[in-house]
């Protein structure tokens, strides 16, 4: 697929550097924007402006600086954009939570009540905990493939977490009509936030080890290869779980999210769109049935279709949110100058409407693009990493984030029926924040593996050509070689044979990658292209990541022992399918 090659270039074609400097600079920018937003809120709320705001900004920078140092230490080649995006979303979320604290305090003062506890302070504590978890994940998970070993455990715990609120009595599990909580002694957690990560790990591992189950051909129909009916069992189980969530937790969002992740990951693993079609059809049928028989689902759908139908009662929340958005309009009222506190749950589930009211459509666009950036960076990581497990994990996590944003934002802007869920990084709430920082840590771990030059781990053997040993293959300049040298190209240059049939013959010192079929530079070129864009297309020789280790490198890369979860083995299979 030559047309697709350029898509990868930004990730792998950058300089050899770790790009940690970029990350730090972007974090500083996020700190500046967040501090500026805080100053605007204070000014518009007629609070006294003083140096405290600056210190808060610096404290914020220090928190993320710590996370940055952890990345620098544990995953130096990780993607430099994701953490700053998350930090900016988090910073703006904090500012909004603080802004709503101010409104609540003002209202309490007017009624003569004591001011309620400030959510923003608690959220900062959650942020600190989230970043600790972030660092711990970075530190403890040194190779993401090791997670595959715990796939079934993760799957079991994830399922329990997902299902627990449905089983628990409503008193412990229901908040605002959605049974997605576990509340024990004043502290509530949303187990679904953790379940989404655990289930993604499980599915990645499951799909790697059981791929044959999904790829065995059944009938051909409508130009698609359908699976055999008996192979549908895993999808049907996922469907039953999704429907259970929908009916017993009356939460279309979690249901949609869970099933969407499953479908996306099966699709990535099998490349068969028939799975998606089957999945969408059975999900649609199930959702329709739920709408027909479950009154709580009906109520949500009615509100969705007619958000202003009962603004005093059932559609109060949604309509208030829409009023806020509409009042904000294109450019918003300005931070601190709107009335987002009129919307219930304005700092949690409805934080998108608060943002949309004060920052306007333009601000909402920026926020959605930030989410899109995190999600697509995760998907690019999936493209770049070589092992199948890593691909599925990064893709699953990246897609999870986006589909959650879609569910939350779509719910409050009346694109889909509303469900109570937190906007990742922005909403007030500990579970969501901690879980999503763990999510980002995992994706960063995978992206580190995708970009890390092999030389970092496996030192070149004696006698290796010393030139640019740290240059990832994909980022190296092509060197001119004479025709006669073609059989042994210099290290770091692509193999000559476009066919790849004899790839191993072209490898010296076990360093160069095995070029996948059809992905080498222009077929039939007698010599590697000259300097310049002769660097192979992004899908050309991969940076020799751990999974791509050749025979000479056994022992250098922390590969899981053969015969157990075998992500590495299937990784090879994955490549050749390109």
């Amino acid at each position, binding site marked *: 697929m030559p047309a*697709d090659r350029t898509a990868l270039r930004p990730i792998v074609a950058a300089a050899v550097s770790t790009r940690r400097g970029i990350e730090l600079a972007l974090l500083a920018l996020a700190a500046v924007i967040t501090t500026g937003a805080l100053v605007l809120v204070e000014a518009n709320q007629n609070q006294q402006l003083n140096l405290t705001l600056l210190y808060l900004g610096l404290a914020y920078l220090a928190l993320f600086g710590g996370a940055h140092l952890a990345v620098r230490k544990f995953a130096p080649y990780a993607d430099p954009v994701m953490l700053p995006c998350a930090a900016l979303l988090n910073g703006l979320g904090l500012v909004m939570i603080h802004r709503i604290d101010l409104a609540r305090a003002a209202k309490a003062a007017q009624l003569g009540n004591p001011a309620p506890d400030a959510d923003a302070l608690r959220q900062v504590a959650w942020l600190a905990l989230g970043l600790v978890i972030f660092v711990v994940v970075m530190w403890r998970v040194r190779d993401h493939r090791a997670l595959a070993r715990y796939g079934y455990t993760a799957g079991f715990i994830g399922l329990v977490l997902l299902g627990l609120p449905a089983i628990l009595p409503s008193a412990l599990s229901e908040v605002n009509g959605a049974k997605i909580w576990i509340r024990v002694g004043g502290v509530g957690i949303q187990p679904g936030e953790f379940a989404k990560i655990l289930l993604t790990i499980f599915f990645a591992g499951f799909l790697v080890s059981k791929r044959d189950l999904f790829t065995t051909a059944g009938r051909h129909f409508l130009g698609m290869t359908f699976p055999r009916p008996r192979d549908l069992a895993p999808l049907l189980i996922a469907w039953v779980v999704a429907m259970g969530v929908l009916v017993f937790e009356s939460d279309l969002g979690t249901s949609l999210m869970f099933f969407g992740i499953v479908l996306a990951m099966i699709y990535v693993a099998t490349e068969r769109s028939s799975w998606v079609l089957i999945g969408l059809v059975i999900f649609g049928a199930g959702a329709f049935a739920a709408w027909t028989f479950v009154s709580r689902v009906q109520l949500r759908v009615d509100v969705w279709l007619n958000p202003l139908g009962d*603004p005093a009662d059932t559609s109060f929340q949604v309509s208030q949110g829409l009023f806020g958005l509409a009042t904000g309009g294109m450019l918003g009222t300005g931070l601190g100058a709107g*009335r987002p506190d009129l919307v219930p749950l304005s700092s949690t589930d409805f934080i998108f409407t608060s943002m*949309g009211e004060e920052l306007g459509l333009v601000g909402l666009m920026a926020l959605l*693009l930030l989410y899109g950036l995190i999600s697509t960076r995760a*998907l690019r990581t999936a493209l770049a990493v070589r092992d199948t497990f890593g691909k599925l994990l990064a*893709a699953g996590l*990246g*897609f999870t984030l986006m589909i959650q944003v879609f569910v939350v934002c779509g719910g409050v802007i009346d694109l889909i029926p509303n469900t109570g869920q937190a906007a990742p990084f922005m909403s007030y709430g500990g579970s969501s924040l901690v879980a999503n920082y763990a999510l980002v840590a995992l994706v960063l771990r995978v992206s580190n593996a995708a970009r890390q030059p092999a030389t970092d781990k496996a030192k070149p053997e004696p006698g290796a050509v010393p030139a640019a040993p740290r240059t990832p293959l994909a980022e190296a300049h092509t060197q001119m070689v004479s025709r006669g040298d073609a059989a042994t190209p210099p290290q770091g240059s692509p193999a000559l044979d476009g066919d790849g049939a004899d790839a191993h013959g072209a490898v010296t010192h076990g360093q160069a990658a095995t070029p996948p079929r059809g992905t080498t530079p222009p077929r039939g070129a007698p010599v590697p292209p000259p300097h310049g864009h002769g660097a192979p297309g992004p899908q050309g020789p991969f940076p020799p990541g751990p999974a791509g280790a050749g025979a000479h490198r056994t022992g250098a890369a922390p590969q899981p022992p053969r015969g157990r979860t075998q992500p590495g083995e299937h990784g090879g299979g994955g490549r050749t*399918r390109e």
Partner: protein
Amino acid sequence: MNTPLRRISLVVMALIVLLLGQATWVQVVKADEYKSNQYNQRVLLDEYSHQRGQINAGGQVLASSIPTDDKLKYLRQYADGPMYAPITGYYSQVYGSNGIERAEDSILNGSDDKLFVRRISDVITGRAPAGGNVALTIDPKVQEAAYNAMTSKGYTGSVVAIRPQTGEILAMVSTPSYDPNPLASHDGAAQKAAWNALNPDSPDSPLIDRAISNTYPPGSTFKLVSTAAALDAGMVTPDTPVTAAPRITLPDGTTTLENYNGEACGSGPTVPLSVAFAKSCNGPFAQLADQLGGDKLKAMATALGMENPAQTIPMPVAESDTGDLSDASALAQSGIGQRNVRMTPLQNAMITATIANNGVPVAPHLVSEIQGSDLSVVDTTSPDSGSRAFSSSTASTLTQLMIGSENGGTGSTSSGKIPGVQLASKTGTAEQGPTPKTSPPHTWYDVFGPVPDPQVAVSVIVEKGGNRGDDATGSSVAGPVGRAVVAAALQQGGR
């Protein structure tokens, strides 16, 4: 497996596009609809959060917003609330607004495009954005005289005074009135109590501005219209002999129409038109209308501003109309302002003013100036003359007829004459209600003066005979009120 990954990336982008599309739908396309929804408290809170403009007249502030320390930062206050309530209207958090408060809302709340430049400069200079002010044509002395004249006798009705040459409304009174202050209270319970006390659903509610929202049978004052049409068509002169019979039979052959109290108009079989006009005999004018034909009568009424459903001053004015004139008997009855002829007091004042202005109607209006929050003039209303309704000779003939009525006819018997000032007037005593003969009549008095240089035209209606019951006439009840108003206007000196 990279192909599916790229497709998933496309799905991610598609999801973002879907969200952005819906956000655009909500925040741009449907924004105005959602924003103005009554359940959206933001707009009202926002309006209360910055200072609404004043309504002032003749240097007096009639309505203004003063800072408070509660959630709604400003409280609307009305000086002399009941006297000006039909003009200012009310401004209530719960019950909305009416009057100038409603008609000029965009000026008062500062959102009007006329104030655009000023708004920009407010933003630049950091001044708190404040609404514009509305200056009225109302003359407080005239308004006060009219209001006191009506309320001192406990009359239910309305007074409208217009400057004939410009259409400026000098006074507009509707009684009984109400105090708009409690309706603007920030205490919801107080608002509700005040609102319910005003019987908002009753046709007699004080909330109804009788001057522009109610229409009444004009009775004999409509003879101004039928006489103007007949004079302008050249059918009659003041000396034309007309019937003096106490009652006539209508063209349908059965219905009879009699003069007030069944009195004859004169001793002989005929009297000159001028006498019939002064004594306000009914028979001759019913016959005149019959001879004129419905089209001509309706055309004259329309030229004088009737049959216009879209009139605003800037509040919308109820349509005055002549009803169906195709039937000859209906036409004859309509010629004396009965049957289905209906008029607002404002319309009657317009007719009087048009005669005073030599036959040229000028659109009546209440707003003289739009001012910025610093009282600088943003916009000024200029007189809007319509096309001539009748010739100036018709106007001067009508004026002579009205002088005859004032001096020696129905108008001569009442009190309150102004020494040294020649007025021209027409009275009306309009039957009303389901049992017209036994119900107390509405009494009218149309007057302008001084002749030959009229400064003010006034129309007064006192509903249901005022305090005189069945015996009430325009002359005895409404007349003194009208003269008091003219006197107040003339003491101001006019121009």
